[in-house]
Each structure stands twice: as C-alpha cells, then as structure tokens.
C-alpha cells in the first residue's frame, strides 16, 4: 500500500471573477517511509495539494488516498494518523513553548511523555526556552516547535508545507537533518519547498509549476535527464558577461548561478573554442568555461519553458 496516492486531482479557485486552476491534473504517489518533496515556487499549487491530502480541502475532480483511506470519505481516520505543519506559523503565540506542546499532545489524545523519544532531539534544543511565549521565539525556533507539535502524536505520515520558507540557511540545514532522522524512524514525510537546493535531500521529488507537475523522479535521475551540455562561465565583469552571452547567436539560455553563469547552447555539439573565442572578442579578461553537471534548479528552469 502506498502512503499517499493522488489520481488526476483538479482544483480551481475563483479569484476576482475568473477561475484560476491551482491544481491541474496532478497524480503521484509516495511510498511508505519515503521522503518526498514537492518543489516549486509560490503559487504553484503546493499548499492546495497539501490541504486536499490533509482532508482540509475538497478537490474538484480526482481521487486521493492517505494510507489507503479516501480523503473525502475517510477524513476522520486520516486525521487520526497524520501530522500536519501548515505553511504559516500556526501555534499559539500567547502560550509558552511547553503549553503549546502540551496542548497539541492532548488534542491528539496523547501526552508529551508517551512520545517524548520521537521529539526528544528537536525538543531538547527548545527546552531552555520552555517558559517563553511562542510569539517571542526566533524563526528557526518556531519551526522546531511547530515540528515538535506536529510530531507529538507519532503520526504515520507527516505533511510539512514549506517548513523552511523565510528561515535562514543554518536553520534550514538543521531542519533537514531533523527530517532525515525522522525518516530513519519510519515516518513517511511529504514536504514542500520553494528552495531548489533542498530538492537533493529528498528521496524523490515532484517539480511543480502553475498547478502542473513538470516531472517526478529521484533528484539524481532528474539531473541525469538534462539533455544539454551545461557550461559554467565566469569572467571579471559578470554583468557584461551575462549580456554578452545572451547575445551570442548560439545561446539557448543563460542565467546567473552564483559565481558562474549557466549557459546552454542551441547546437549542443558546438566546439567549445567557438565560445571561448566569442568571449575573448567581447573583451573579457580571465574568462573560464567548463562543462558542469546540472543542478535541480537548471532542470526546473529547462522544464519551465
């Protein structure tokens, strides 16, 4: 049995008199114990998919199941076995860290002590601030508390909607380390993120844009399926270089990627020396060109077109 299954899910919202298709024929499944990532920018439909799966929203069309339970018919059963962390920080700001955790433990019919082992790792970092109001915690700490609250009843499937949005790189890294540990305890995790670099930390990912799935596979397979040579180019004047590369007649796409510009060419078999010559002619000093392996972000951008 799959942990999560979606079959041809559609959902549209009326926005300013026009109907916007936020989920457009989405199908995928998540295996038991898998860490599955839904990767896409804001407005791609990630939150709607999460809400459909957590029984909060009814799809217009299609079927969805969580651990074999139908999201429409068996909503009560599903609510007993899943953990959910919505995108917005959704804890009681005027309750303390401990009061929040206790509260959520009770409404899930359990106690902190019963499942302490599961949240111990995360909650230990919060314990010094036990009596602090949740509203006074930092972004990273809030995420940890929210995760503890979503975990306290030992859910079989954990839904995390953009848990790392707006969180700094350090806290993000720590958060993903926590997810890895949870996965090792057999919890199925479905996570969404707009950060492409986090995709590699998932077992499998679905790239999503404008309500449509662009691709579903392991991060490695997706990166391997990039069908063009990808050049990383840099020189001393990166801004000029970007414009120059874009006007190169063989350029298919060129984007800034940190310290390099990533370039794909229309004619994949072009001799690299042509490119070198062009860059030199444009007056760039100390230019370097190398062929690199694509990142998920490269793949996403290629698929977006």
């Amino acid at each position, binding site marked *: 049995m799959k942990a999560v299954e979606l079959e041809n899910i559609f959902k549209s919202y009326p926005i300013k008199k026009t109907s916007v298709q936020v989920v457009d024929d989405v199908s995928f499944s998540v295996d038991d114990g898998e860490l599955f990532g839904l990767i896409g920018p804001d407005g791609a439909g990630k939150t709607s998919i999460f809400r459909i799966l957590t*029984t909060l929203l009814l799809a217009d069309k299609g079927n969805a199941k969580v651990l074999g339970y139908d999201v429409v018919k068996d909503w009560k059963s599903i609510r007993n076995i899943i953990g959910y962390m919505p995108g917005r920080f959704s804890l*009681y*700001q*005027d309750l303390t860290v401990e009061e929040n955790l206790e509260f*959520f433990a009770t409404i899930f019919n359990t106690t902190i002590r019963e499942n302490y082992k599961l949240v111990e790792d995360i909650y230990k970092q919060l314990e010094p601030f036990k009596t602090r109001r949740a509203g006074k915690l930092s972004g990273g700490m809030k995420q940890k508390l929210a995760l503890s609250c979503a975990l306290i009843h030992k859910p079989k499937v954990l839904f995390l909607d953009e848990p790392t949005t707006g969180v700094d790189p350090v806290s993000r890294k720590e958060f993903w380390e926590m997810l890895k540990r949870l996965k090792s305890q057999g919890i199925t995790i479905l996570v969404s993120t707009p950060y492409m670099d986090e995709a590699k930390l998932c077992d499998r990912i679905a790239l999503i844009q404008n309500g449509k799935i662009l691709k579903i596979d392991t991060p490695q397979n997706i990166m391997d399926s990039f069908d063009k040579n990808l050049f990383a180019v840099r020189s001393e004047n990166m801004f000029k270089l970007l414009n120059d590369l874009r006007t190169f007649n063989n350029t298919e796409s060129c984007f800034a990627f940190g310290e390099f510009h990533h370039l794909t060419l229309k004619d994949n078999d072009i001799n690299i020396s042509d490119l070198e010559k062009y860059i030199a002619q444009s007056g760039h000093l100390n230019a370097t060109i190398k062929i690199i392996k694509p990142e998920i972000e490269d793949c996403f951008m290629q698929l977006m077109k």
Partner: protein
Amino acid sequence: MKQLLTFVKKEFHHILRDKRSMLVLIGLPIVQLLIFGFAITNEVRNTNIAVLDNSKDETTQIIITKIESSQYFDIDRTISTSDQIEKAFKTGKIKVAVIFQQNFQEELAHFNKAQLQIIADATDPNQATTLTNYISSIVVDYQNQVNQQNKLPYTINTETRMLYNPQLKGAYTSVPGVMGMILLLISAMMTSIAIVKEKELGTMEILLVSPMKPRLVVVSKVIPYFIISLINVATILILSVFVLGLPIQGSLLLLIGSTVIYIFCALSLGLLISTITDTQQAAMLISLLGLMLPVVMLSGYAFPIANMPVILQVLSTIVPAKWYIIIVKGVMIKGIDITQIWKELLILVIMTVIFLSISIKRFKIRL
C-alpha cells in the same frame, strides 16, 4: 474529556493574558452598569424652576411647598412675571416653569377642576419629559391626598412616598438593558471573535487535522465565554441590588434560568457569525452593527418600542434582547412568575434552536 478540559484551559490562558480582552470582559459590564444606573438620577437633581403663582392661595402654596421640598427642584424666587420666565428659559437659567391660574383654589372647590400649566425646556426632550413627569406626579400625589381627606376628614395628613421613585427610575430601565447588551456582547461578539481568530492565525487548520471532533473544538471555545457571562450576571445582579438599590421582586431562580437561556441564544448567534466570517475584523463589525445596534435601538431599552413606526416594531421582534429585557423587567421589578413570561422564554428558545441549527449546518469540517 481531557481534550475538552485542556482546550478550555488554553482558552482561559488566551483571555487572561490579553489585558484588553480582560478589560472588555470584566470591566466593561461594571462600568456600563454604573454609568447607566447613576446617569439619569444625577441629571434631575436640584433643577432650577420658576413658579408663577397667579392665585396665591392655600392650595397653590401647599403644592409649591411640596415641589420645593422634593430634592429635585430649586425654585428661583426672583422670577415673578411671565416676561421674566421667557428670559430665564432663553438664558437657560430654568428648565421648567409652573404657572397656576387665577383663583386656583376656588375653581378647584367649585368646579372640581383647575388649570396648572407646566412649561418645560424641550431642547433635551428626555429631560423635559422626566421633569414634567416629576411635577405631575407631585401634583397627582397632592390630589390623592385631598381625595383621601374628603372621604376620611379626620385622618392625619401623613407623608406619602412618591409613586415612581425617581432615584430608582434610571436603574429600573438601565439594568435590564445593560444585562441584555453585555451578555450579547460577551457571548456573541467575543465568542465569534475567538473562533475566527483561530481561522485567521491558521491554528484552525491544525485543529481540524487533529482527531479532536470539530464540534468539540467549538464547544470548548464557547465554554469559557459561558462561564464569564455567568460571572457577569452575578456581578451585575450584586451591583444592582447593593449599589443601585434595585430589588429582585420575583424568583431569583427564574431570573437566572431565563438568563442562561438568553446566554445560549447569544452564544449560538456568536457561532453563526463565526461561520460566516473569516477575519476578526469582520466578526467584530458584524457583531457591532448586526447585534449591538439593534439591541440599543430596537430592544426597547433606549427608545420605547410602542412609539416606533410599525416596520421597526416588526423588526424589533427578531431582536432577542427585546424579549430578554421584557423578562428581566418582569421578574426583577414587577415580580411576575413563569406563567406570565413563558411566551417570551419560548421565543428565546426557538431563536436559539434556529441559530444553532443554521450554524451547525454551516459549520465546515474543512477549510
């Protein structure tokens, strides 16, 4: 059960930690009751009036003395002509003038009829009505005395209490009104805001995705406000009896019982509001405009319903506070029992059932 208790505890944390909501919940009822309870009595004390006695006989002197001896009027002796009266009204020196016709006593003796004119400054109509009522009541009081004397000539003239105790008059109308308003404010407005707050914060999402039954969530949200409403009923009643000197003529049990029904009615209204709004702001606006305004305007608390246009009279029947105020007035002041107010009670119960079933129907187990 543990879920419920924890939830209620959490709810009290929210309330106790927010000073503003505490103030509204506990402070407002007391302040309102005291303001409304004392306001009217202060207004009419020691009002300046002029008396133009064109008869100057025994009877007019007795009436004037009676007016003067009441603590509500001071007679301005410098005014002795009708011209002066007109001037005094214009400058605001006096609020009321009492004019006796010529030969007052004689007319009364011979024709059983005499003219006494009361002129009031009606720029403030409420005050003018109150003042003229006071004076009429003093005159009526004198008449009663005279009539009694006629039947039993040798009875010693005793001091009679006024029929309408002016000091209590303000509290008589304001206490039932304040109760109707405060309970609605706390039960309906605060409850709807508290529920909508969870939606706005996003915590409702987590609560819905928990095994806790959605209806239990609502019940737990409502309980604290029910308790606070009861506390407020107690403080209002204690204040009315011991500070404002209002009696509870009828059965206390009946009063509390019908109050509980009214609270349920208001709570279900609050629930209804929470099902149709998504922001605290909207919930507050609907509560204020949709509930408070009709309560003040149409419940008979500020303006008598009998004087309203027919449309408003019809509209006033759907305002729960109207029925509740009738009940409170009846039980507290007139001391009537359930046989005389069962209709009003039944209306409240029916309203509660209607509000509750609509909200249950509208309550969403999803977002």
